[in-house]
């Protein structure tokens, strides 16, 4: 077990930068091999406890990281970056991941310049009224995050009425779905710190 066992956890959703401590032991930096560095994708991630924990399974981490990067950073077409980040933040808010929500709310604010609206999502929850287009993205993300999955034809119609084409809707589906992966790792392997 890791020695880190809590320490000042945040009790509200925030756009501040948070830390994160692992509940089980990350690999020591000195034990990382080339197989592990391939799994980390970015060598700088060797400094992060979270990634040195996930790199215990390097093949899964590598594939997950590359999925993540394409879904969020490949903005050659499809949904603007701000709204991909909104889908991530809304999913995290709904699932209850204070750490993931902080990171992606910050990104959503940076790319949209709508910091107050993003903050209302964090403060009021996923029912906050953020305007037609953002409401459609948030509702679709929440419907996808529910178990059993509640995403249906109504969500597609609402997204289309808000102006999204099918390629953009696929980006909402990918971004929201991906955070059902990310949230479960961050929430279950450790905890955020202020």
């Amino acid at each position: 077990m890791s020695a880190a066992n809590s320490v000042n956890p945040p009790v509200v959703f925030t756009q501040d930068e948070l830390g994160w401590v692992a509940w089980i032991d990350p690999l020591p930096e000195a034990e990382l091999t080339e197989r592990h560095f391939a799994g980390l994708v970015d060598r700088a991630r060797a400094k992060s406890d979270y990634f040195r924990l996930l790199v215990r399974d390097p093949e899964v981490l590598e594939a997950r990281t590359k999925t993540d990067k394409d879904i969020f950073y490949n903005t050659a077409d499809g949904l603007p970056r701000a709204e991909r980040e909104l889908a991530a933040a809304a999913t995290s808010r709904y699932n209850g991941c204070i750490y993931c929500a902080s990171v992606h709310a910050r990104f959503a604010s940076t790319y949209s310049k709508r910091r107050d609206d993003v903050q209302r999502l964090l403060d009021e929850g996923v029912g906050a009224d953020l305007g037609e287009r953002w409401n459609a993205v948030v509702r679709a993300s929440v419907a996808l995050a529910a178990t059993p999955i509640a995403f249906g034809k109504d969500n597609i119609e609402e997204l289309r009425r808000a102006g999204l084409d099918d390629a953009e809707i696929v980006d909402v589906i990918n971004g929201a779905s991906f955070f059902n992966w990310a949230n479960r790792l961050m929430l279950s392997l450790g905890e955020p710190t202020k």
Partner: protein
Amino acid sequence: MSTTDIIDTLAGIEPGSSLEAIRARRAQARENAQKSYLALFEPIDASDFSLLERAAVALFVIGLHGEPTVTAFYRAKLAATAGGAGLVEAIDGAVAGGKTSGPYGAFPAGPLSIENKAGVIYRVSVDRRPVLGTRLAAALEHAHLLVFRPRDAASADMKALLDAGWSNTGIVTLSQLVAFLSFQVRVVSGLRTLGAASA
């Protein structure tokens, strides 16, 4: 293009369809969702988490989501895994006993406590434990936590897995498997819904 992409297969995406063309614009995401599946179910090293355990946990996780096509895929996968055919009934029974609606759970004590939502804390039934064994029973209980109430996860849940014989590395892969399937089933469901709405 490959016809063995699991998400395309499960979502019913036909070669030459508009959805296939849209997915092709996120080729790295598509390829690596597939590689994630292969890394989890055809790993280089299964010593910390056996293929049988992986297939059993997968059927449980997907069964809890109630998506029939995806459930049928993972049920067939467990049945085809060495030692798996004898577990299918036990896992289907565990799914029936564990089905509920999420996410629910508690937030850290403070202003968010008013959003706390109580729900089932799943435990494998006593009569099913001998069939599943200690390790798999602990894995199913943890998987249920991650599927329905991930915000309830605590360091004590790591200890429960360690006490049941899971290694640190095994816990990381188990967490990835449950979390990955939570992603995969949503992409499949979302794309299938979009495909139907575009037909």
